[in-house]
């Protein structure tokens, strides 16, 4: 079963200039972990939000500091309020995570191609993610669960560094209590009070129940985590063309013009960030990329 990531407009078609940021207001903030914050954004007065595909990203501009690509982490069925989950790692992300309700942020997007959620109906779907990689996959999980009857088994395997790094605890608790999604968590390090798994996320793959011959995997996380995850999926019998990965490069313009995020003959901002593994396999193996 080969399919391609979701095709979407390169940018919000109602917004004339894709390079022009629109000012959105912070409607709500939520501290997800000690260094990660989710921002719920409100469109400018009288303006509609915009639809997006799970896996797409926006360029968020912290005024006077810088612009960064941030995946949309909210529910695609609710396009009136955009949610982005941001980990403070640099100047721009630190500025964004410091914003308060009512502050303004510049938004360009949505950009890129997302997870082919609709196209993989009929299959088991295994979502494997590590660290903040759960954020770009949350919209896909929302969509899978909204159309649950169209899929076989749905499995979520999530790895984090420590219990304190686990994102979206409320979502995870809710998903774990459902009978129609298998959710497994693991952390790299923990104290004895942690009752869950300890070990890397790849260790959860042999334990998960799914049919490798009729299974599509969505994988998102740091590239090293994805590399080892893909190896384990292939070992389990999942075909390379049924594995989708979200690539991370230095995205700047969002429309494939500036060339900063070039990956072989494609641009991650325009042709990705979600790719079929088969199409980017060589980049995974290439050193110094």
């Amino acid at each position, binding site marked *: 079963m080969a399919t391609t990531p979701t095709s979407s407009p390169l940018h919000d078609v109602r917004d004339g200039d894709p390079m022009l940021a629109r000012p959105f207001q912070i409607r709500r903030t939520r501290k997800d972990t000690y260094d990660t914050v989710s921002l719920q954004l409100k469109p400018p007065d009288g303006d509609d939000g915009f639809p997006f595909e799970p896996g797409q990203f926006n360029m968020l501009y912290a005024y006077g500091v810088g612009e960064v690509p941030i995946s949309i982490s909210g529910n695609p069925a609710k396009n009136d309020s955009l949610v982005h989950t941001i980990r403070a*790692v640099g100047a721009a992300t630190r500025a964004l995570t410091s914003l308060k309700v009512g502050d303004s942020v510049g938004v360009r997007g949505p950009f890129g191609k997302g997870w082919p959620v609709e196209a993989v109906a009929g299959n088991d779907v295994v979502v494997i993610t590590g660290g903040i990689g759960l954020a770009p996959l949350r919209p896909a999980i929302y969509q899978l669960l909204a159309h649950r009857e169209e899929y076989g088994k749905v499995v979520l395997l999530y790895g984090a560094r420590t219990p304190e790094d686990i994102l979206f605890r409320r979502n995870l608790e809710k998903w774990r209590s459902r009978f129609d999604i298998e959710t497994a968590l693991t952390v790299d390090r*923990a104290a004895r009070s942690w009752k869950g798994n300890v070990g*890397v996320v790849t260790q959860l793959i042999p334990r998960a129940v799914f049919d490798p011959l009729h299974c599509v995997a969505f994988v998102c996380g740091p590239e090293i985590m994805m590399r*080892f995850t893909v190896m384990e999926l292939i070992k389990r019998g999942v075909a390379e063309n049924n594995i989708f990965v*979200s690539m991370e490069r230095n995205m700047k313009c969002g429309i494939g013009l500036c060339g900063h995020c070039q990956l072989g003959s494609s641009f991650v901002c325009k042709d990705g960030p979600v790719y079929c593994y088969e199409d980017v396999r060589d980049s995974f193996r290439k050193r110094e990329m």
Partner: protein
Amino acid sequence: MENLERILSEHPFLEGMDVDQVQLLVGCASNVFFQANEFLFREGEPADTFYFIRHGKVSIETHVPQREPIVIQSQDEGEILGWSWLVPPYRWHFDARAVELTRAIALDGKCLRDKCEQDHDLGYEVMKRFALIIAERLGATRLQLMDIYGHNTDK
């Protein structure tokens, strides 16, 4: 014993092993269970057992003076716990604690070591299977050391 034989012969770890060899293993096997927080073994003790975990979860831990013990890895249902019985000086390197009620089949490693010495074909089969487990655990430990969910992302 018949039940143990069936369980062991169906376990993926012993897949492809000769029926006679499985029977030799059954001769060293017994059913055990551990309540939550009970230790299966502790660091430094003689390592003369390994376990097929049938139900529950076991955490591999190490103690640090004046700090809470650190959990290094957890082993789940269907997995094999313990390989220190196979390599000198046959002492456990870490503690193993049942996180919840855990049922397992315990195999007497000392008995099996003797059988492997007497029957090198059996020894090779056992060693081959444990080499795979040791390699997997080493790979997993390396990944843990790499800190693969690191903070280098803006996603």
